[in-house]
């Protein structure tokens, strides 16, 4: 029996109707597409009246298939599927045609747009006839959550979930949680002590009964899908027994090997070969850096082992792979600092007194290598003048096109600290001053009043080549002052580069493990930049903090909490619907060649050694079609995207507009004649 197809063409106000003659599309479809029983246009199909119209037609006109030509299925597929379901039609017998994003928004010629819309409607109408009813599946949501990254965003997310009573695995690759915030002295614009507001959260996370802290650990592999992920985590060997160690710190104190700490101290301080990155570290358990430890490199020393009061040192310890099961994953992996040596004109690495902002943060920090004294690289001389250069590696097409969002405020904060702690003059070289959050502009006004100098212009060069006696022995900042309209050379003792925030070097790799993608700049891609900033295109995987895009502490905290709220929603709901659009393997036809086995990005294909055939685990399959395309025998079928449906769609789309037009004109002429 022929299907009875209903076609509904949406105006979307003038969004579609402005560039597509929707009445004509509806009229044409009604007359020319086979098996079409109803073809209508309507102002807003997604309105309750529009939906009611579909429901009514299904009931009274006996429609068996529905095509809605409107916006992207991302927006309203659920809406129209629900409308069909309300009228008793299987929701998968409804097909959406995108004539907004794919036609009206990318088209200026109304006649051409109308023809394209007809072709797309024709494609959907031909395919929808071959669509089959599908039944959704449900899986339970494991209430445990994996949070990757123990910076402020991850901490916030972990604590929110743990406080709500749900188990959390918090994975951090450094020996301690805390992230970049633990390195700072003060936070803008309130000038709270960074450690004072962060460490209570750290110790709370460390002691929380619902949080399993996995520091010095990295995510190895993720399998499964929303509601039921299985995650392999590598716990790197600390060479210190976690249970025996009391965190007394005597091992670090007695360790004879000192090395430059390039992580926590940003390269301007030292640590020992056995170390805990900072006094408030959580956990307090140190780790041995095997690359610098004398015992590991030369085979003797073992001082730490001798002095340890609890015999906690274990040189034989090995990396440990553990497996945890979680329902959701939150990535809060943060950022890394732009390598300023990539901009040789600023002299970083060549001119001693050029510092990165992170180095400078450590200089200012009372717990830092200089006990908070702002001094030159020699460790004793207080600078008489300091230049702070904005946008180093950001807002620059050669490095990172985007704005790092925090540097203007951080520069103001650092300027304030210099003015507070020294008698130095402070110059800020900025392109635009961006102080657009609560109390930020006020902080800028405060620095103007405090006497920080502001020069508007991008610095061309920092050099030590003096041109006159005043510049002798100084670093000269060469810049076009765009407000004065002339070149300036400002001699200073010290230069601070406000370096860009960049995605972590392995962000993409980690994203792939979790099935999410990165933007061109390398930040994780959210599901919707405005309306869904912490969800991703992979259900059950959320992002929070700077890994999603440069942002400051309040915004990171807000995202951490938002991601936790989304996860809590999933946990409360208890089960998630899984689209029945999955692949199936015809076991009769499968020759067990195993091409598909390691392709599946969701690890949904298993091999039956006994029958020598591959099989899709429906609950894990996301219907991506990779295996369908790869199966050399052509025996994997993607439900909702089978060959018959796709070929029908192609044939519908290739409907010949020109031929049909001539035909119609001839018909009209013969009628009028």
């Amino acid at each position, binding site marked *: 029996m022929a299907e009875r197809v209903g076609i509904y063409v949406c105006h979307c106000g003038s969004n579609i109707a402005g560039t597509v003659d929707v009445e004509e599309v509806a009229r044409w479809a009604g007359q020319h597409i086979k098996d079409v029983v109803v073809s209508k246009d309507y102002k807003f199909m997604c309105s309750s009246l529009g939906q009611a119209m579909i429901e009514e037609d299904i009931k009274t006109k006996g429609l068996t298939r529905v095509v809605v030509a409107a916006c992207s299925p991302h927006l309203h597929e659920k809406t129209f599927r629900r409308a069909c379901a309300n009228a008793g039609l299987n929701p998968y017998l409804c097909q959406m045609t995108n004539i907004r994003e794919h036609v009206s928004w990318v088209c200026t010629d109304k006649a051409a747009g109308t023809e394209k819309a007809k072709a797309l409607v024709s494609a959907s109408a031909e395919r929808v006839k071959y669509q089959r009813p599908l039944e959704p599946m449900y899986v339970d949501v494991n209430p445990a959550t994996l949070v990757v990254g123990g910076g402020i965003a991850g901490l916030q997310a972990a604590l929110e979930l743990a406080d709500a009573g749900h188990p959390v695995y918090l994975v951090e690759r450094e020996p301690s949680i805390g992230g970049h915030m633990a390195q700072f002295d003060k936070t803008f614009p309130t000038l709270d002590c960074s450690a004072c507001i962060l460490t209570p959260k750290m110790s709370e996370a460390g002691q929380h009964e619902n949080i399993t802290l996995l520091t010095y650990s990295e995510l190895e592999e993720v399998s499964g899908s929303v509601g039921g992920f299985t995650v392999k985590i590598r716990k790197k060997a600390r060479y210190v027994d976690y249970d025996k160690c009391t965190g007394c710190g005597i091992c670090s104190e007695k360790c004879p090997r000192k090395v430059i700490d390039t992580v926590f101290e940003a390269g301007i301080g030292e640590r020992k070969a056995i170390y805990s990155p900072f006094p408030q570290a959580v956990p307090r358990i140190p780790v041995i850096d095997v690359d610098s430890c004398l015992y590991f490199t030369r085979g003797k020393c073992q001082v730490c082992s001798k002095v340890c009061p609890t015999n906690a040192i274990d040189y034989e310890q090995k990396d440990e792979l553990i497996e945890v099961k979680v329902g959701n994953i939150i990535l809060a992996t943060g950022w890394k600092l732009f390598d300023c040596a990539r901009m040789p004109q600023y002299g970083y690495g060549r001119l001693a007194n050029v510092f990165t902002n992170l180095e400078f943060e450590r200089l200012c920090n009372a717990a830092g290598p200089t006990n908070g004294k702002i001094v030159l690289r020699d460790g004793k001389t207080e600078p008489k003048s300091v230049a702070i250069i904005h946008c180093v590696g950001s807002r620059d097409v050669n490095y990172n096109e985007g704005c790092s969002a925090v540097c203007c405020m951080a520069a103001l904060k650092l300027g304030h600290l210099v003015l507070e702690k020294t008698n130095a003059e402070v110059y800020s070289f900025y392109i635009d001053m961006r102080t657009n959050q609560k109390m930020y502009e006020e902080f800028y006004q405060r620095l103007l009043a405090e006497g920080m100098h502001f020069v508007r212009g991008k610095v061309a060069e920092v050099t030590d080549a003096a041109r006159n006696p005043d510049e002798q022995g100084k670093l000269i900042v060469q810049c076009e002052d765009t407000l004065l309209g002339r070149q300036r050379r400002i001699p200073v003792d010290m230069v601070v580069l406000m370096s860009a925030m960049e995605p972590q070097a392995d962000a993409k790799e980690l994203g792939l493990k979790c099935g999410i993608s990165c933007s061109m700049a390398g930040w994780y891609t959210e599901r919707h930049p405005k309306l869904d900033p912490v969800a991703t295109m992979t259900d059950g995987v959320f992002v929070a903090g700077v890994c999603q895009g440069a942002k400051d502490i309040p915004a990171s905290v807000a995202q951490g909490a938002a991601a936790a709220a989304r996860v809590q929603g999933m946990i409360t709901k208890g089960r998630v619907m899984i689209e029945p659009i999955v692949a199936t393997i015809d076991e*009769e*036809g*499968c*020759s*067990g*060649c*195993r*091409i598909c*086995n*390691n*392709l599946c990005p969701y690890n949904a294909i298993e*091999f039956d050694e006994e029958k020598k055939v591959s099989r899709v685990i429906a609950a894990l399959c996301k219907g991506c079609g*990779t295996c369908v*395309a*790869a*199966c*050399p*025998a*052509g*025996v994997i079928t993607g439900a909702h995207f089978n*060959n018959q449906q796709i070929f029908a769609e192609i044939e519908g789309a290739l409907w010949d507009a020109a031929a049909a037009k001539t035909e119609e004109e001839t018909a009209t002429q013969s009628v009028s004649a």
Partner: protein
Amino acid sequence: MSKAKGKLAVYWAASCGGCDIALLAIDDKILKVSEAFDVVFWPCAADGKVHDIEKMADGEIDVCLFNGGIRTSEQEYMAQLLRKKSKVLVAFGSCAHEGCIPGLANLNNRQECFDTAYRDTPSTENPQNVRPRHETQVPEGTLYLPVFYDTLKTLDQTVPVDYYLPGCPPEADRIWDAIVAILEGKLPPPGSVIGSDTTVCDECPRKRTEKKIKKFHRTWEIIPDPDTCLLEQGLLCMGIATRAGCGALCPQVNSPCIGCYGPNNDVKDHGARMMSALASVIDSQDPGEIQQIIEEGIPDPVGSFYRFGLAHSLLRRGKLAADGNGHK
């Protein structure tokens, strides 16, 4: 098999003759064939005249096993004639089914084919540059040769075909299976390939694991391990994408499948299928390295992936002869 004797025709067009030999490879079972059928036409094995066929009633031949592709006007005529006279027309073997090796000449046009055959090959001595022509004037009158078309077509690109028997040539056992099916009237729906619905791996005893290919080797470069999947060892084995039926003969003697049985059911383009399967198991994420793996290991993609199926594939001619395709 007690019915009245049926009528059988066997014809060859653009093919090597191997299919006719394969038909005889069913050994003494050929006697059973002759018990069941009168062989009314089989130019390779018995004398027969085209005008005898022309005089037959439409549909008088019960089964015609047609091997070879359609390259000339004569072959085209014979295909049309035998179609008309036969109840069941079987595209027998890879040439009729998919174009096979003669179909690879579709990479070139007629002009280039003639240049190769009548000028460029080292064994050719042709100082007057004589080329085959449709019409040749001689004192006695006009001589005609069949028109050599620019494009080789498969049988079903020329006339409607009822069944396909794949293989270059089809294996004797499969031929016998098909004959039995015909005799017993147990044929699949028209348009089907008579054969297995799975691929060569199903018949291949080698051990397979998950596939990751870092480098492709030509067959002369390595001596493969006899127990492990050849593809996993970097040999371009078409078995994964090729219809079963041969019993995995080539892989069993340490030689990769070259794909003569064509694609599995519902696969429209053998080469494209194989390429998309391979593309997914190349073990690299780096575009430069992937390119290198492909270029070094697969120097002749058409010859590797479309050796048998070019004429029937979705690939379309880029090079038609300047004077058209020769089809009238």
